[in-house]
């Protein structure tokens, strides 16, 4: 099955219906993992160029505006993509998750994204996470981050950003020459419910 055909199948209404009986994310993953097309996709993602192609595709379908009254019809598919990417390309999965977290009208995809962020990014220090999540502009052309290198820091907090510690990543031999934005995912507001995340532009 070709890459395009696989995506078409995973994004079909029938496929979403099959996954739709899930009552939580774990069940959704179990159902997805039983599908041959998902197994093939996951295997193909071992190839970095294929994974980047999928990431680009995710960035593009997240931005599509269909009927805004309803959930994104590719919601479950995006969740599957994030999960599949996380198995072999965690850095790219992190980028897909970041895009999903900022997109409207997603249900499963947001849960998959949170699962990736809490499971992978939170494991190490912010600096270690930053190492993992560097990606080059040439590999990430869609999703609103065109021609930028993006650094995602797992849990820096406001104090860390204000203190400029994020920007000390140069000391860790990260290539920040072309870095335009730092996206954080854990910057708590005062009421500890909603979270306003800082975007630092260099």
């Amino acid at each position, binding site marked *: 099955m070709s890459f395009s055909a696989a995506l078409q199948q995973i994004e*079909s*209404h*029938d496929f*979403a*219906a*099959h996954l*739709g*009986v*899930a*009552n*939580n994310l774990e*069940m959704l993953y*179990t*159902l997805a993992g039983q599908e041959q097309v998902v197994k093939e996709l996951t295997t193909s993602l071992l190839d970095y160029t294929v994974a980047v192609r999928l990431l680009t595709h995710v960035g593009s379908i997240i931005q599509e505006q*269909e*009927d805004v*009254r*309803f*959930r994104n*019809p590719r919601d479950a598919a995006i969740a599957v993509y994030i999960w599949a990417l996380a198995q072999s390309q965690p850095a790219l999965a992190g980028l897909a998750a970041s895009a999903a*977290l*900022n997109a*409207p*009208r997603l*249900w499963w995809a947001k849960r998959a994204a*949170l699962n990736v962020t809490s499971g992978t990014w939170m494991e190490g220090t912010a600096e270690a996470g930053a190492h993992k999540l560097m990606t080059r502009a040439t590999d990430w052309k869609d999703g609103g981050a065109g021609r930028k290198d993006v650094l995602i820091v797992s849990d820096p907090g406001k104090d860390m950003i204000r203190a400029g510690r994020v920007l000390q990543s140069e000391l860790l031999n990260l290539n920040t020459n072309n870095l335009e934005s730092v*996206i954080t*995912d*854990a910057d*708590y507001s005062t009421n*500890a*419910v*909603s*979270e*306003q*995340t800082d*975007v630092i532009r260099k």
Partner: protein
Amino acid sequence: MTMIIGRGSERDRAALQLFTTANRSYIENERPDEERAVEGLQAALRFAKAISPTAKCRSLTAMYNCLGLVFASRRTMVDCKHLDVILRDDGFSPIPKVQAMEGDVVVYRRNGISQHVGIIYELRDISLQHNGSQIEFWVLSQWGEDGEYLHKMGEVPTIYGNQLEFWSERKPIR
């Protein structure tokens, strides 16, 4: 960029303030912002009918799940991992199948882990179709986000498992 932390928790203003009967435990829940599109729901209905041709769709919606139907009046989504706490705090007790009646709850488990819950709404006597007494259980349950169905107890997606338990909070008639 705005993101909610503690989604579904007591601090999430988009979640219902939902507590168990004993008021001991907050039940984490999340309310979807949007319904699924019509085409997606129609595909869900086709899928459900393929699993259970005799099932009758009561409501085709993705705005709540099985626990939301049984324990939250169809208002929200509640993860199945909370089922055991809810059953305990709401005063449910396990009962043998022969004692189950309309209004009791059937829990579906796979590998011992709760996956699905529904309400028994009919005990259909099908003795005439079979030699000897036989009762067929019919259940009302929401299949994930694929709609709410009246279905035979055994005709559910295989992911829900085949370990069935019956629970009741009935109080004795004095």
